[in-house]
Every structure is written in C-alpha cells, then in structure tokens.
C-alpha cells in the first residue's frame, strides 16, 4: 500500500526515504522526484488548489497502478496544497524496489500521471499583482500517454 499525503505542511525527504527502508533489507534502489516552485517571470507565489476527496482517490489509484505494474517494495506520494514561495517543495514521489529499473520507471510514471490525472490546479501570483491560472501543457498529456 502506498503512502499518500495531501497536506499544506512541507515534508522531510530524508525521513520519507528512510521510512521506505525501515526494517527491511530487500530494497536495492529508491528513486525520487521532488517538484519545486520556480520563480519564472517574476513569480511571487504559487497557490495550489485541489478537490478534497477526489485527490486522495486519484493518487491512490495511480499508485495502485504503479504497484501492479512494477515490483515495488514501497511507494510514497506527498503533494502540498496552499501557498508556495519560489524554492518551496511542492511534490515528492518516492518509489523503492529490489531493482533500479522498477524504481526509476515507476517514479517517472507516477509524476507523469500525477500531472494529468490528479485534481490539482495552480494559480500564479506575480510581484506586480497579476494573477494567472497555470494552463495544462499538451506535452504533459503526451508524457502520461506514453506509459
């Protein structure tokens, strides 16, 4: 069972990595992806909204697909919501397996699907007061479809 968290608080990458190894010695590799808020074009903050209830279902469903497809010993998805400043961590995906290929592929799969299959929306706030909802990127859809 994957560990799924949707929260305003930040997260501890080291503790989450450690938790995937706790009390077991069959883990050969842990792949991770940490998504971070960039400061493109004078961005002052990023506000992340989601659909409570559906988000957790969608993430659990995506994680279950990964666990069915790759022999994972563990899987963690943490997605923050609320207001992020440039440099703040937004999302963490961790996958652990006996073998590196399963960990690396499932991690890429999860972040690709999470971008297109989980109900989060980003609003950008700029230093000059402008606001803008981030638009979905066709290449994200293409990235998810390749799996």
């Amino acid at each position, binding site marked *: 069972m994957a560990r799924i968290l949707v929260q305003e608080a930040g997260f501890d990458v080291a503790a989450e990595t450690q938790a995937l190894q706790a009390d077991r010695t069959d883990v050969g590799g842990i792949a991770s992806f940490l*998504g971070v808020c960039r400061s493109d074009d004078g961005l002052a903050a990023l506000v*992340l*909204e*989601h*659909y409570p*209830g*559906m988000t957790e*279902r*969608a993430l659990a469903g995506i994680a279950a697909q990964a666990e069915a497809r790759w022999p994972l010993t563990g899987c963690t998805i943490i*997605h923050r919501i609320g207001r992020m400043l440039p440099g703040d961590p*937004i*999302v963490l995906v961790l996958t652990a397996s006996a073998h590196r290929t399963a960990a690396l592929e499932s991690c890429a799969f999860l*972040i690709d699907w*999470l*971008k*297109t*299959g*989980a*109900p*989060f*929306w*980003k*609003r950008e706030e700029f230093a000059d007061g402008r606001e803008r*909802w*981030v*638009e*979905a990127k066709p290449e*994200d859809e293409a990235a998810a479809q390749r799996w």
Partner: protein
Amino acid sequence: MKVLYFAWVRQKVGIAEEAVSPPGEVRNVGELITWLSARSPGHAEAFAQPRQIRAAVNQEFAGPDALVAANDEIAFFPPVTGG
C-alpha cells in the same frame, strides 16, 4: 445533485458548491453543462468554452456523455495542473 466548481471555473461561477435539481431530460454531463449555463451570467461565462472544461462524476473523471443522477456529486474544473 451536488455540483462543485474548482479553480477559474469556481471564480467565474462565483460559488464553490451548489445543490441543484435539474429536470429529468438532463441525463449526462454535457446536458448538465448546458442547463447550468442558463442559471446565471457567471455560470454562462464559466461554461462558455466547453473544451476548456473537465468534469468528474462521483470523484472520477468523466466525459460529456457520462450519465448523471440525482444523488451524484458532479465537479467542473479546468484541465489539471498539479505535480
């Protein structure tokens, strides 16, 4: 029927959530969009470009042909941009 709005769809409609009772001929998501569009100028603006709208029925992504029923939770929102 509970209807939820997210992101700019919510901003344009002006509310995050409402309980509605559409008539029996509103059978699917597409027909519900048409019916909701007539409720207010905000609704009309939110649904003005149906290709920009995504929907979920009972917390599962759903297309315009997906059926909707009285006790369903229907959500409308832009394409997702998380991660």
